[in-house]
């Protein structure tokens, strides 16, 4: 006791030594703090749980197997990080004389182009005579990368690489005809109240005759466009701005920051760039915080980039009602999205796993889509 007393006298002010109760309380508090510190460091430095994992609550929902994974040749390796980036080619082959143009289509944050959401649009654009090239952003869908990790500079570098890859091989690309139509799962509404104009498309449209009237002379270069949804809209706009600036010598090359701005774009290849389509484009967060809070947030992001923002800070996640118009449509999307696919977005700490599990439990009899791969693979490569 004497040695403990002298030790505490050395460590703590005399007032503590004279008050045993205060001494005990301080010792307990210090010990608890040190234990917490050790535990926290252990958590930070120790092995991380493997991601993705199948959440137990998804049991009973059909989850495609590993055999359904995309084939290796449907990836390209990004120069920026060495990740495998997944891509698909849809619609009319660019080499076809009646092809009206090539559209690069991309999804938004936490989404991916394998979602059934995209199938009707891919079909409609193909029916209208367009070739469509899609790729999943890094960390999204089947692409590698930190799940739902966003980095505009690196994503734009990947995007530029993808556009280069496709445009450089336009003459040799051939698409598998009809793959989307065969693999798509049409939305069959049990409710007759759904209007056909607002529900996902049912089957293919009969606009092929109109396409044939718009034959493109093969000698004419194929115009190409970029199109993106939400976050993809913002990213593709920056890319378009960079292409346009490089071709016409205007603008500031803003999009190239952090990407591969040192490599000049091939101007002749990009000459027939036709413009940009933004669907529900992201431009600014709905409620940007005040500057001091934003500065703190960026500081935390620098310290803990991979960690999820606690709900108490981020608030409620986006309600499905903001995305889809009715409960039935929400349930359809929940059960038809391939979020269960390894690498898909329902895995691990995805932003959507919570709401999807709720919707699935609410609609136990909802149909699930056998995953027959909606890919359009290159036939002759």
């Amino acid at each position, binding site marked *: 006791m004497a040695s403990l007393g002298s030790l505490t006298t050395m460590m703590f002010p005399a007032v503590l030594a004279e008050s045993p109760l205060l001494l005990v309380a301080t010792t307990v508090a210090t010990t608890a703090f040190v234990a917490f510190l050790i535990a926290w460091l252990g958590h930070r430095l120790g092995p991380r749980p493997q991601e993705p994992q199948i959440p137990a609550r998804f049991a009973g929902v059909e989850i495609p197997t590993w055999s359904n994974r995309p084939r290796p040749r449907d990836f390209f390796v990004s120069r920026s990080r060495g990740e495998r980036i997944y891509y698909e080619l849809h619609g009319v082959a660019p080499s076809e004389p009646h092809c*009206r143009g090539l559209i690069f289509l991309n999804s938004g*944050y936490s989404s991916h182009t394998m979602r059934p*959401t*995209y199938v009707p*649009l891919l079909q*409609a*654009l193909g029916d*209208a005579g*367009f070739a469509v090239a899609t790729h999943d952003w890094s960390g999204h869908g089947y692409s590698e990368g930190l799940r*739902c*990790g*966003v*980095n*505009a500079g690196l994503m734009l570098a990947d995007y530029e690489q993808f556009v280069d890859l496709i445009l450089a091989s336009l003459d040799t690309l051939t698409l598998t005809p009809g793959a989307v139509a065969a693999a798509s799962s049409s939305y069959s509404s049990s409710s007759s109240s759904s209007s056909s*104009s*607002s529900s*996902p498309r049912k089957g293919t449209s009969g606009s092929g005759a109109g396409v044939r009237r718009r034959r493109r002379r093969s000698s*004419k270069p194929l*115009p190409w*466009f970029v199109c993106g949804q*939400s*976050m993809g*809209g*913002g990213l593709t*706009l*920056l890319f378009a701005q960079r292409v*346009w600036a490089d071709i016409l010598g*205007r*603008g*500031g090359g803003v*999009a190239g*920051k952090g990407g591969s701005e040192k490599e000049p774009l091939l101007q002749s290849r990009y000459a*027939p760039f*036709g*413009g940009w*389509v*933004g*669907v*529900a*484009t*992201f*431009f*600014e967060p*709905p409620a*940007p915080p005040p500057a001091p809070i934003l500065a703190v*947030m960026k500081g*935390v*992001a620098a310290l*803990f*980039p*991979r*960690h*999820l923002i606690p709900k108490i800070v*981020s608030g409620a996640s986006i309600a499905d009602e*903001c*995305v*889809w*118009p009715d409960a039935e449509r929400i349930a359809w*999307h929940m059960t038809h999205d391939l979020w269960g696919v390894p690498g898909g977005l329902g895995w691990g700490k995805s*932003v959507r796993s919570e709401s999807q599990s709720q919707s699935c439990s609410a609609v136990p009899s909802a149909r699930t889509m056998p995953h027959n791969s909606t890919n359009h693979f290159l036939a002759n490569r």
Partner: protein
Amino acid sequence: MRWSSAAAFFDLSDRLKAATDSGFGVGFPMLLCHDPADQVTPFAGSQLLFDRARTDPAQKVLVRLDGGLHDLIGNESEAVAKHISNWADGAAAWASSY
């Protein structure tokens, strides 16, 4: 959402503002589809992009798709495809003119 992703969205927003503020930033054909009631990405962003773009008025189109909500591609795929199809020929003509 991850901390880094949230910060990246502000970074993306800053880049977009810089790209459009310059006055020379955007001059190519553009088609914007948006639901005015979109609560995830406000319609005002598309309106601002549309207003600021120096694109020839004949080459820029802002389409209001009421009731489409945020997943316009899923909810209004036919309308989106139709607008793209209608807009693309003019844009392609623009592309062949330079």
